[in-house]
């Protein structure tokens, strides 16, 4: 196995059965080492040893797990015991967590082998992975294009055949955007669906960990491993969903809602066409669609950025050089902390900390933060209303295909505007899956299927049916089998 290829979990397991996890893992590591896309920040030096342990069934439960010996890539903001976790920031360089995130515990219990930690926008703040301290990740479809963000590394390595599956996190589209730009499948589960314990917070009230894969079934497999209640996360909810059961090829009678607000000014013509073609396909498969109104969509972006930055300004206060990561010396603690933060944080992170601090300050708190919360409630109501009439909503994940590296990074507002279709979903806390629905000029287009709270089974069923009845997922970047 020398050539990079897409392998779903079942293929990987077949391969392990005929050879070994060690061999499969080594093959992935080989592909990673030859890669030019810069998808990983850190390679797990213990990956081979772990694979050997699974092969020998040393951990006693490895071979029984649904991911026994299966390699996985993990976004660099999810805590991995013994493996450096930096959030692609200089400030966390050298930080090795002494504990595993809940999802990592679950993955290891299921037998997974961690390949490494994937590149991302610094502290998940971005839409292009260009704000990483460790350099941007290249889009496997076109090395001049961004992979999307902030989980750009996690989506790119799956698309490039450098990992069969990966985990990302989605605060305002950070799983769905890179999944769309890299032509793979990514799920943002319902808020509370997966424990955030161990996920390094950017904006706590908005974000969820989410899986990225080359097919819908793998998303279900991963979710069955990592989803569910965890007493260590007070926002996780007791709700039993068996994702595997939702893999049914049948959308007869499915009611789809389509909102013009998600095809707003600035949308790429090719993207619009691909998404409408997908909706047409669903109709052919037995679903119906209707126009619905989401009147507060245009306010969502402003509300999202104010809430996210406010929370971020507080979440990132702990990076002061005292306990972990970078430390710049100073004559007293305050000087040390200031210098550390000045040197350790990148420009976008500083911008968001400053804006968030401003939005929470006395005199501005009501005008910005409280107002944003009120708008959030209105956006939520849009979804509640819409989803009481239809089963799912469909929309383009991103208004355009992947843009050029460097094209928007100097213009933060232009970059923020690309999140217009993904952030409302985080404000409402509902689940959404992005999957490929066509190519525009050789670049993938993402279709977003949005469902009601904890109704992942409906969007998974729709996504699975679409996958079974189209060949969009058969298309791969050049050089990947």
């Amino acid at each position, binding site marked *: 196995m020398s050539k990079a290829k897409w392998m779903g979990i079942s293929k990987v397991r077949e391969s392990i059965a005929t050879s070994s996890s060690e061999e499969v893992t080594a093959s992935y590591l080989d592909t990673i080492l030859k890669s030019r896309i810069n998808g990983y920040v850190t390679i797990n030096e213990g990956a081979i040893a772990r694979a050997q342990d699974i092969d020998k069934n040393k951990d006693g439960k490895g071979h029984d797990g649904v991911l026994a010996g299966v390699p996985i890539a993990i976004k660099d*903001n*999810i*805590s991995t015991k013994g493996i450096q*976790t930096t*959030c692609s920031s200089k400030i*966390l360089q050298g*930080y090795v*967590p*002494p*504990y595993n*995130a809940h999802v990592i515990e679950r993955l290891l219990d299921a037998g997974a082998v961690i390949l490494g930690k994937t590149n991302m926008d610094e502290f998940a703040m971005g839409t292009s992975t260009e704000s990483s301290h460790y350099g941007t990740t290249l889009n496997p479809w076109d090395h001049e294009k961004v992979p999307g963000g902030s989980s750009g590394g996690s989506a790119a390595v799956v698309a490039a055949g450098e990992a069969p599956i990966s985990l990302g996190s989605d605060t305002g589209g950070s799983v769905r955007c890179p999944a769309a730009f890299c032509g793979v499948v990514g799920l943002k589960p319902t808020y509370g669906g997966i424990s*955030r*314990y*161990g*996920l*390094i*917070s950017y*904006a*706590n*009230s908005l974000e969820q960990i989410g899986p990225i894969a080359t097919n819908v079934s793998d998303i279900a497999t991963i979710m069955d491993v990592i989803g569910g209640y965890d*007493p*260590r*996360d*007070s*926002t996780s909810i007791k709700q039993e969903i068996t994702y595997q059961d939702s893999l049914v090829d049948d959308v007869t009678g499915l009611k789809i809602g389509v909102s013009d607000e998600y095809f707003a000014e600035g949308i790429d013509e090719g993207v619009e066409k691909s998404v409408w073609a997908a909706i047409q396909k669903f109709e052919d498969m037995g679903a119906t669609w209707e126009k619905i109104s989401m009147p507060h969509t245009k306010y969502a972006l402003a509300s999202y950025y104010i809430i996210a930055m*406010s*929370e971020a*300004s*507080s979440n*990132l*206060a*702990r*990076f*002061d050089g*005292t*306990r*972990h990561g970078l430390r710049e010396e100073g004559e007293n*603690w*305050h000087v040390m*902390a200031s210098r550390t933060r000045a040197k350790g944080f990148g420009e976008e992170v500083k911008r968001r900390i400053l804006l968030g*601090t401003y939005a*929470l*300050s*006395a005199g501005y*708190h009501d005008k910005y*933060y409280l107002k944003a919360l009120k708008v959030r409630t209105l956006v939520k109501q849009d979804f509640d209303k819409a989803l009481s009439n239809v089963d799912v909503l469909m929309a383009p994940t991103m208004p355009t295909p992947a843009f050029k590296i460097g094209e928007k990074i100097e213009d933060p507002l232009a970059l923020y505007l690309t999140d217009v279709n993904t952030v409302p979903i985080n404000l409402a806390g509902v689940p959404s899956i992005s999957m490929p629905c066509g190519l525009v000029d050789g670049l993938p287009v993402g279709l977003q299927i949005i469902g009601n709270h904890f109704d992942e089974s409906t969007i998974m069923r729709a996504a699975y049916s679409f996958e079974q009845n189209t060949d969009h997922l058969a298309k791969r970047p050049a050089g990947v089998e």
Partner: protein
Amino acid sequence: MAYHNPDGVMIGLEIHVQLNKLNTKMFCGCSTKYHNDEPNSHVCPVCLGLPGSLPVINEKAVEAAMKIGLALNCEIVPQTQFHRKNYYYPDLPKGFQTTQYDFPIASEGKVFIEGEDGEHVIGITRAHMEEDPGRLLHIGSIDKSKGTMIDYNRSGMALIEIVSEPDMRSPKEARRFLDKLRNIIEYLDVCDTTLEGAMRFDANVSIGGGSRAEVKNISSHKGAERALLFEIVRQKNLLRRGGTVVQETRHFDEARGVTISLRTKEQEHDYRYFPEPDLVPMRVADRTAKVAETLPELPDAKRERFTKEYGMADMHAKALTSEIRTADFYEEVAAKIDAKICTPWVADVLKGELNYRDLTVESFKVDDMVEIIEMVTQDKITEKSAVDVIRAILDSGGSATDIVKEKGLIKVEDDVVSTAVLEVIKENEAAVTDYLGGKEQSLNFLVGQVMKKTRGRADAVQAREMVLASLNK
């Protein structure tokens, strides 16, 4: 007589009570029993604020907070919520403190104290839950220190912050309020107030309706009284010299007994409070009644019951109920001995001897107390000997029985005393003549001689009567 408060002193207090009797911290499973352990040995990702860690509310802490709220006659909020208070300090590992803001667990209560002019009511603004920061240890003195070490063992300990209305009119009333509060906290069994840092105080002081100064870093009741006295004098002097009191935060230097300006109003932090997104609002309304049922009898109620049940004066009831340990001790003694008899022995004698030695009632055994009182009532030892036995136990230990034996304190029989009386009258002719000649003091001398002969075991009053009887024959 009504108290006029000539200087218009207004004092409000903020008291931090550490819930050190809980098994675990406010938001994680770390043990609270760190006081004798190595620094940073009771820590985990949560109380170290490691990236990615999340808080989980300790339900027992919520229960304790509700108990405190109810004991302070507060309203318990139906739904409570945590907020983040953002500021940078090395002892604060997350860069914010998880605390409560606009939905504190308890508010609008009151506490009754012995004021300058009788019973006085102190309003309780609120009581809320929060987490303790870590502790800074300076190498050497704070200003010359070469380095600072941080111990996060205390980080994340559950605190209840109680905020009073500015209803105290003198440092004495403030001290009384703090005593009362400590008393209530001890009754609730939520805090061992003897442990370091168990109760800490900040005070707001103003005079004559002027601006208030906030005094921080007060760690004892005595310190509170001193800090307040200093601050009132400082403000009065300032006004007398034509100055004005500015709103500011001041630091109490316990060693020097003075307050020093830390920062003025303009330099105050903007804490940028916002709801803690990692903790969802918590409904407690359906639990309040149940928690109320678990409340023990509180000091005021116990004091009233003592006067009724044991027929004691209010002064005694107050002394006995001012500490739960003393009240319990008394009731154990009173279960075995007539309450009327044992009340002064515990409330006056034992408490007086304990206070003199700065000891608590835990230094004394109920059985010893019972035995000593019984020996007095059975006329085996004198009251004076009983006091000596109590002192001996407190000073050098031992049981009542042994001490009585060792010191030969058993009262001597009457005939021994009468023999002594006869001998004394025979041996001191001059004194007898003096007395009969009208010199009253000579009687005292003769009684003293009898006591000397019986080595103090005779009852002095009885000996006096017997001497008188012999002389008047």
